[in-house]
């Protein structure tokens, strides 16, 4: 199935005008300046007004062209965009709960599976390798702790070499 969205340029221009109007509304309580200097709302409002004006130019140009910009989106197109976005959003949300390592493994295995890597025997070790390597690099070498979450997998990682008999 294919959906046809017409006048996307006009829709885009209208959204930009709405954004500009929103800036004016949201900045109405900003404090004013002193000593000749404009207040906190001045600069965002100048920018928003310019965006609004240019959006009107886009809108008028689109009307004048008589050839509305149209996007044809098939169900496949929509799925190919939506699945990675949904997986990314789930990954970010899960990171605080599962911690970086588990969430990353789940995300990588899921996205690789969706991308066409069907053998878990290949994707799971790869995902584990990437997640653990990044965890160590960031924590040990770069001193940037990644989320540990409520599942204490990251805490067990230092013992991993012992568990697999390397050390």
């Amino acid at each position, binding site marked *: 199935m294919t959906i046809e969205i017409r006048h996307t340029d006009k829709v885009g221009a209208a959204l930009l005008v709405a954004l500009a109007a929103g800036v004016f509304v949201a900045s109405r309580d900003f404090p004013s300046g002193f000593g000749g200097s404009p207040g906190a709302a001045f600069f965002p409002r100048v920018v928003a007004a310019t965006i609004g004006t240019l959006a009107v130019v886009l809108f008028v140009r689109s009307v004048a062209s008589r050839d509305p910009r149209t996007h044809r989106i098939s169900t496949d197109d929509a799925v190919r965009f939506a699945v990675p976005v949904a997986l990314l959003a789930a990954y970010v949300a899960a990171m605080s709960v599962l911690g970086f390592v588990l969430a990353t493994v789940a995300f*990588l295995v899921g996205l690789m599976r969706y991308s066409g890597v069907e053998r878990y025997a290949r994707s799971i070790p790869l995902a584990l390798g990437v997640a653990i390597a990044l965890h160590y690099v960031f924590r040990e070498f770069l001193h940037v702790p990644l989320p540990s979450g409520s599942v204490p997998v990251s805490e067990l990682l230092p013992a991993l070499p012992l568990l697999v008999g390397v050390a």
Partner: protein
Amino acid sequence: MSAIGNLAQGAALVFQPFALALIVGGVLIGMTMGSLPGMTATMTVAVLVSFTFGMSPAEGMMLLLGIYGGALYAGSIPAILIRTPGTPSAAATVFDGFPLAERGLAGRAIAVATVASFVGGATSVVLLAVLAPQIANVAIEFGSAEYFALAVFGLTIIASVSGDSLVKGLISGLLGMLLATVGLDPVLAYPRFSFGVEALSSGIQFIAVMIGLFGIAEGLLRYQRGIGSEQVTQELSNVIPSRADLAKIRNVTVGSSVAGAFIGAIPGAGGDIASFVTYNEAKRWVEGAASSFGDGDIRGVAAAEAGNNASTGGALIPTLTLGIPGDSVTAILIGALMVHGIRPGPGLFQDEPALVYAIFVGFFTVYVVILVFGLLGARYWAQLIDFPGTYLWPAIFVLSIVGAFALRGNVLDVWVALGAGVLGYAMRVEDYPLAPMVLGLILGPIAEVNLRRSLQLSGGSLEIFYAEPLTLGILVLAAISLLLPFVQAWRGSESA
């Protein structure tokens, strides 16, 4: 301290085992990513910038400069072999590189591209080291009115880097400026557009936005269009240039290197613009080029590659001396330095001379490493072209997420990156260029704070912007730069 003393201090920071390892590692990463069709230098630097947060500023710069130079150079390899530029900067390399490959001379084309990239990059770094301190000496006297004028000038460049749609380019830049107003007001310290969310009152991290715009958005586009991999059928041999070829490309390489460096110094004009300009100029001026360029002339490859890599040193001139990014990658370098509390600008040359000169020495070293690895390892980089995207893109998404998180250890930055990714995807689909948004994000705050300080100093009088010839001159240049593309478009439509 004298320039020689500063150079010695800079060299002392670079010629340490760890810093040298970072240069080599950065070049290898950059070359690997640049060899993969569609992987831009900006994307690679954006998704890997977080690895520098735990390093010293000089070490971090070595890694990022290695990636920057390596990726820009290696974009030429798939451009020559499969007619698909690895990075947009290598697009002009396709014109003569691919016809050479079709005749079985891919090795010769890559050899020429490697030498030209080295000459272009190294020349631009020398120009950077000579010119930047002089410019910084002048700029140190600038007051807020001059800085406001410079920021406005930088923003007007948006019109010339917007491609086919000037209006969309301007809107993109303005959206960047608007995003940059989120957070504490720079004069009154009032939280703007934070809507009660405490994390937002410290502002939107522009590196998170860059990661989203250049890393996540590119990945989403790839998935939507299908993540197949390219096939390379050609065996590479003899990637050492002959003496005859070196003699043939000598003049065009040197000329394109100097021109590319100056084009790169224009804020917003990156390697893609530099390579097209130097290629076209070489086609006009080089003897016999009008008929042979486009048909496998090695001078065409040299002109494009010298120009493209020369833009890198040029781009660092406004970045280091004025804090105005020369291109998207240098915008991320500014962000990386700001994470360490260092703000590029003329003060950098007084406060951190060792770091500045380490950047000069380190970037020159980057190009020496590129020459060595390019000539010795071209056949290995060529094999990377068909690396399957099914493994690559999931990993790039993870690096993007980790990079955004590592900025402040804050999940909000990750959501910002994800939101910027979806926004960048929508903008790409609707033909809004992304580079102007980056300029807006960096230059917007500089313009605002200096405008307001100037007006405070002048008691609200606009005279401060036209009383001094320098300020007025920059503003007039800005007006010309903004209006020129419109006038050209109008005259084009009149003549058509």
